[in-house]
């Protein structure tokens, strides 16, 4: 029996799909059997980030509607044999999902994989609600920026009221990834500190990911940035995946970097 994790954000464009792809691959690299599922019906993107867009034959809506078998629709990654992928439907819209069918699909996936990671659509509408409904845990992705943080708080509020676990009187685990941190901007007081974001959202930190040009370079090629050992964002995802696999990985404080202004300032006081 695996664990089901929904990756959510509220606001779009903060790096949810990138996080899903990299954590999925990171978990697979840690030799756990993992499947990543694109729940963003009508705006399929996880296939592109994983470089699997040419191999999609059947999607999850076809599986839920009985038009295809689950085994036929699941794609095995070329990069790591522990990583599997189930695509969203591109031709339908988010309203096609039904609670009963989602429940059945999630239960089946939980039987076969150690980790089931669901990439939620942005927003807080029905597509989002279906993604979180049967999840054991949620990873909330934010950028250190007011609109992202405010929208994340709304998404967390809905998670706390609509999750099946909460309705059963249990707790749904929630963890935060702060993405696209610029150490230089935090140091100069132009960007919110992680500590402040955690206090405002009242949530546990899973990891911090720095702003990194390597992320776009990776998505251009369909090779998740975690494969790029030199990339700081890739290294951050490696640490986060390790934590998700139960390893004790120290929280690296990427907000204190020895680059730019901060380095110069430190130099001045030497």
């Amino acid at each position: 029996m695996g664990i089901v994790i929904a990756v959510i954000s509220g606001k779009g464009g903060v790096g949810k799909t990138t996080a899903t792809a990299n954590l999925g691959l990171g978990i697979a690299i840690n030799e756990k059997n993992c499947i990543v599922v694109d729940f963003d019906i009508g705006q399929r993107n996880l296939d592109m980030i994983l470089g699997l867009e040419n191999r999609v034959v059947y999607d999850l809506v076809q599986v839920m509607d009985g038009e295809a078998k689950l085994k036929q629709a699941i794609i095995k990654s070329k990069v790591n044999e522990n990583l599997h992928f189930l695509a969203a439907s591109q031709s339908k819209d988010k309203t096609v999902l039904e609670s009963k069918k989602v429940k059945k699909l999630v239960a089946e996936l939980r039987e076969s994989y150690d980790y089931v990671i669901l990439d939620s659509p942005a927003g807080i509408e029905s597509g989002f609600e279906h993604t979180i409904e049967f999840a054991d845990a949620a990873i909330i992705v934010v950028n250190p920026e007011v609109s992202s943080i405010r929208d994340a708080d709304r998404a967390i509020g809905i998670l706390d009221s609509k999750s099946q676990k909460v309705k059963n009187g249990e707790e749904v685990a929630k963890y935060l990834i702060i993405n696209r941190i610029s150490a230089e901007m935090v140091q100069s007081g132009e960007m919110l500190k992680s500590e402040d974001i955690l206090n405002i959202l009242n949530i546990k930190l899973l990891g911090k990911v720095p702003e990194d040009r390597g992320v776009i370079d990776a998505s251009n090629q369909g090779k998740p940035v975690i494969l790029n050992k030199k990339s700081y964002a890739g290294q951050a995802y490696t640490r986060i995946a390790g934590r998700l696999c139960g390893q004790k990985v120290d929280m690296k404080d990427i907000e204190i970097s020895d680059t730019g202004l901060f380095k110069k300032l430190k130099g001045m006081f030497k």
Partner: protein
Amino acid sequence: MFDWLFGKKESASIAKDRLTIAIMSDRDSMNELPFMSEMKAEIVEVVKKYVGVRAVDIKKEIHGDLEALSIDVELDSTGGDNKLN
């Protein structure tokens, strides 16, 4: 860091203050319970048996992991079905 130098507040701390207020108000409006007005009416009925009631205010409060309903009943000494004084 440069507050003292330029007399300007760092924008990150402005963001923190604005977010704290915006999120507090978002959470308040989300905690409007659907059965609130019905529950208020019933509380008024019960309390009115003993003392006069001017207003009832119900708030959902969240303190960490604890959720509570805070109910304020404002009394009206001139009313009530069964007057105490």
